[in-house]
């Protein structure tokens, strides 16, 4: 049975009708010990079939280790959304529920290859000189979470130094524990800074700059 019913598929088709360029959904999976790998793979393949600009590429996390390393993928299920270049846009865990919207957003943004941030935001990201890693913890039932995920992904697109992950917390409980996630969205930047809730762009920028300053020390 398809994950996207007819109505949803039609809606997705419309949302992705005018993609600015080709996008690859690079998915990593394995057969066993991965709760949502099969569903995530199915989702990726169904979505990819809805636009001529989209292709799905599925790798085995174990046997295609080199590819995983190349894209910095360290857990599964994983989706790297790759356009003209790899902007560092990742989804760990299935982007279902409200996060399905984040996936569609990511595809559109990566296709265009440009972020829609404020002028100040673009300026600040142009000045990022150290590698920054944003991890946005979410649950699929959180309507506020896509705001944080989309914002982090935009920052990844705006700066080569920034990579941004959606992390579906219920699928990675050890990470939720490690980062003391007790509410979502929670954004962790470079292990050092964290943001509770769906913070607006200026606040996230401030945290990013704070983390950057401590990374530069």
């Amino acid at each position, binding site marked *: 049975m398809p994950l996207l019913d007819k109505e949803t598929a039609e809606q*997705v088709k419309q949302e992705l009708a005018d993609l600015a360029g080709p996008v690859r959904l690079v998915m990593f999976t394995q057969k066993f010990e991965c709760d949502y790998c099969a569903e995530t793979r199915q*989702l990726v393949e169904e979505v990819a079939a809805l636009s001529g600009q989209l292709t799905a590429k599925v790798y085995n996390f174990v046997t295609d280790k080199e590819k995983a390393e190349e894209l910095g993928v360290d857990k599964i299920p994983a989706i790297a959304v790759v356009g003209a270049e790899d902007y560092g846009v990742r989804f760990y865990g299935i982007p279902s*529920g409200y996060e399905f919207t984040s996936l569609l957003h990511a595809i559109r943004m990566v296709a265009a290859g440009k972020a829609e941030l404020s002028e100040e935001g673009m300026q600040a990201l142009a000045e990022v000189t150290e590698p920054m890693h944003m991890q946005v913890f979410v649950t699929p039932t959180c309507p506020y979470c896509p705001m944080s995920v989309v914002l982090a992904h935009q920052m990844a697109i705006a700066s080569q130094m920034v990579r941004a992950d959606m992390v579906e917390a219920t699928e990675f409980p050890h990470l939720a524990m490690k980062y003391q996630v007790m509410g979502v969205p929670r954004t962790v930047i470079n292990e050092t800074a964290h943001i509770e809730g769906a913070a607006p762009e200026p606040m996230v920028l401030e945290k990013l700059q704070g983390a950057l300053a401590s990374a530069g020390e």
Partner: protein
Amino acid sequence: MEVKLLITPLEPEEADKEAGAVYDLIIIGGGPAGLTAAIYAGRAALRTLALTGPGPGGQVSVTDMVENFPGFPEGISGAELAQRMQSQAGRFGAQIVSDTATKVDFSTSPFTIQTHSVTYRARTVIIATGASPRLLGVPGEAEFLGRGVSTCATCDGFFYTGKRVVVVGGGDSAIAEGIFLTKFADEVIVVHRRDQLRATKIYQERAFANPKMRFVWDSVVEEILGEQTVTSVRVRNVKTGETSAVEADGVFVYVGMKPGTELFAGQVELDEAGYVLTGQRQHTSVPGVFAAGDVQSPDFRQVVIAAGSGAVAVMEAGQFLAEQAHSGAG
């Protein structure tokens, strides 16, 4: 877990930006009141823009199960109901834009509504910005927000698997979400300032029958304590004055709502609690400006009533536009 896929509007900039464009109706808010208004306005062929804000669906989107909305005999998840309303709203021609109004001016017609980047004009407006959870305002609450303090059980319930949580409040939200939290938590302790619940009987019966739920009556939370995360709350019995500690890993606050009316102060009349004052037919103090849903009434807070008032507001807006056209104004 069943895999559900929700699509919310993607592009905030799709709205008509052409200079001089005046909408018949702008709806501010994207909960059941606003979305119902968008359905009715689209069908009435009013040139309509709905600014739904980024969090789609309003409060219903964070309601685990809606069991009292007619037409869904098995109940429907709040998220799915919101999603269905949203796709229905888009079917009839209303423009749905996930942008947020930041400033309004209702002093001259056409009214102006600004977002961060665009100024819109409209002959009529429906305010449907709803209400958001009120916090307790006690020490520790702000500090532990997201680290043990939450107002969204559907979002955060998972993190309390096998843990103990306090739910503050005694109304429908508190009890329904408390019951929902027993799916995850080992124990749910309801702290309520009275000696009985305000919640609908069916929720009360379920709560009292639930072996994971316990009640601390006549008590208020005075402080939320913890280190990295919450470890306990200090409660005070309002009858005896005694204070005691209740150990808990999380605190879910459901002590009522505050209306989303900051934007409208000085524009339309508000009541003492900040709700938009409306007459019987959803009129505000400004002719041509209407209000619907929880933003104008703390009394019922039901999806079906919000939806109903949204429909009334559109019919009245339509009437207002017809009268204006007739008198040659606007």
